[in-house]
């Protein structure tokens, strides 16, 4: 396992493109997690001017709700990790270095594992960035700093990890199938933003609710801020184990298909 991790690492660590993309991701994520509260308050403030009832200022950075708020927001940028994954997995196909690796004695199973390591590494990296910002902002802005308050909703971090891993597994399956980065990115984005939403519209509700991206997005629901409550909206403030199970099954399915393609393919 250490050996396969090392191989994955060596492929990436000297690529300028990799570091640029990763930096962009970290900057966007950090900017979002750092600045979201003042942004929201500015909107709320502007809205108050025309609103018959005053909208209260609110904080996204209070423990324990910050876990939910920031996990939800960070989910918007997971598309970045999918792009990084697709570009570098596709690189192996376009340089035909996948062929080199198999020829030199890497088994197809091991080759699959190096890609899973890449998926998990990207997910863990994202979680790390998220955790750092939650702790920084939480400690700076919370009034209640009891251990209970700090840790009580930290399980959102685990949910976020699964959300990213599932999302990346789908991306990995697409790029393994199509092999070209441009084609894979377009296919991935179109499936995510266009095809699945359209399909959801036409199929029965039960099916629609269980489509992969819908379920993945459902793990962490919109945070129930005072703003939302004001509009009379109620979102789920907990993690539903059914979401977790179905998303986990989807992840296994996507990874299973990826493994099957790698096993079967002529290089």
């Amino acid at each position, binding site marked *: 396992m250490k050996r396969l991790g090392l191989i994955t690492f060596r492929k990436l660590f000297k690529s300028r493109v990799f570091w640029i993309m990763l930096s962009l991701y970290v900057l966007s994520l950090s900017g979002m997690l750092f600045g979201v509260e003042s942004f929201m308050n500015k909107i709320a403030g502007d809205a108050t001017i025309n609103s018959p009832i005053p909208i209260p200022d609110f904080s996204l950075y209070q423990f324990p709700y910050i876990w939910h708020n920031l996990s939800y927001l960070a989910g918007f940028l997971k598309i970045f990790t999918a792009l990084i994954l697709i570009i570098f997995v596709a690189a192996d196909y376009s340089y035909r270095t996948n*062929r080199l690796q198999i020829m030199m*004695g890497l088994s197809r199973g091991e080759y699959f594992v190096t890609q899973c390591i890449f998926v998990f590494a990207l997910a863990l990296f994202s979680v790390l960035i998220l955790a750092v910002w939650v702790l920084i902002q939480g400690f700076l802005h919370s009034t209640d700093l009891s251990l209970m308050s700090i840790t009580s909703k930290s399980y959102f971090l685990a949910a976020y990890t699964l959300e990213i891993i599932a999302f990346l597994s789908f991306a990995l399956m697409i790029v393994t199938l199509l092999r070209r980065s441009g084609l894979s990115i377009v296919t991935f984005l179109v499936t995510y933003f266009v095809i699945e939403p359209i399909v959801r519209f036409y199929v029965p509700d039960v099916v629609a609710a269980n489509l992969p991206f819908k379920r993945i997005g459902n793990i962490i629901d919109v945070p129930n801020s005072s703003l939302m409550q004001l509009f009379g909206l109620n979102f789920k403030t907990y993690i539903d184990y059914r979401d977790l199970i179905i998303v986990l099954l989807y992840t296994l399915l996507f990874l299973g298909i990826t493994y099957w393609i790698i096993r079967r393919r002529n290089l």
Partner: protein
Amino acid sequence: MPPETILNIHGLVKQFGNLKAVDGLQLEVKTAQIFGILGPNGSGKTTTLSMILGLIRSNQGSFEWFGQPLSPAILKRIGSILETPLFYPYLNAIDNLKIIADIKETTYDEIPDLLRMTGLYERRRDAFRTYSLGMKQRLAIAAALLGNPEVLILDEPTNGLDPQGIADIRAMIIEIGKQGKTIILASHLLDEVQKICTHVAVLKKGVCLYSGSVDAILSDGVLLEVSAEDINSLEQEIQLCAWAQLHNNHNGILKVQLDKDHTPADLNFYLIEKGVRVNHLSTTKKSLETHFLELLKQQA
């Protein structure tokens, strides 16, 4: 002790749609042979090598390495180069070789020596994409040699190189062969196979036309150059001779092939008997090229 069989191929078939790229191939490669797979482009050389390296699946037939079916453990005992050199363009020679060393589960200690041997040591910290084709090919050889494999598979190793690059690579292959490694070399260059290989298999459209030692193929049948003042009667008499075949008449010099049980002296004696005075008679070893073209012609 008879030499150990390294590779045994039984009736390998690979079909791409309607095209039979490899058609019932039968081969045996033994220890320390430098085994040439010779054939024109599209004769199934690379397809065969891809199958025996587990990159593509065969439709029929089987093969064994060291008497065993292929596995990653066996691939680690084989160093190979297929077609173009494949590496990460943004990584330098050392980093590319470290990935291979990790895959082969061998140490990085050999890397400096291999880079020196292939003449890449000075450029070891430059990205692969900045290398010339010759350097890329030499890096591929270094990668193939990592982990001290028992067998080396080289597919068109001099393809696209300049004369100096070709000479370098050939010298390197001969040097490696002297160390007792078994080498399987695919090439469409007859001259290359003749210079380097001890054994050869000639492939055409996926069928093996000949397989055996290079010496044997070169020694069967002597080719003579004969000339005389009276070229017309010389030509006539040779055509009448049952055990000599006239190949061509090139500027008054006839190329004649004798059957196996006759010597140039026999021909000389025969011509004197017929009253033809020969003023030029020399033996030339048939080049592999002549054999190769003959083999291809026979099958056409």
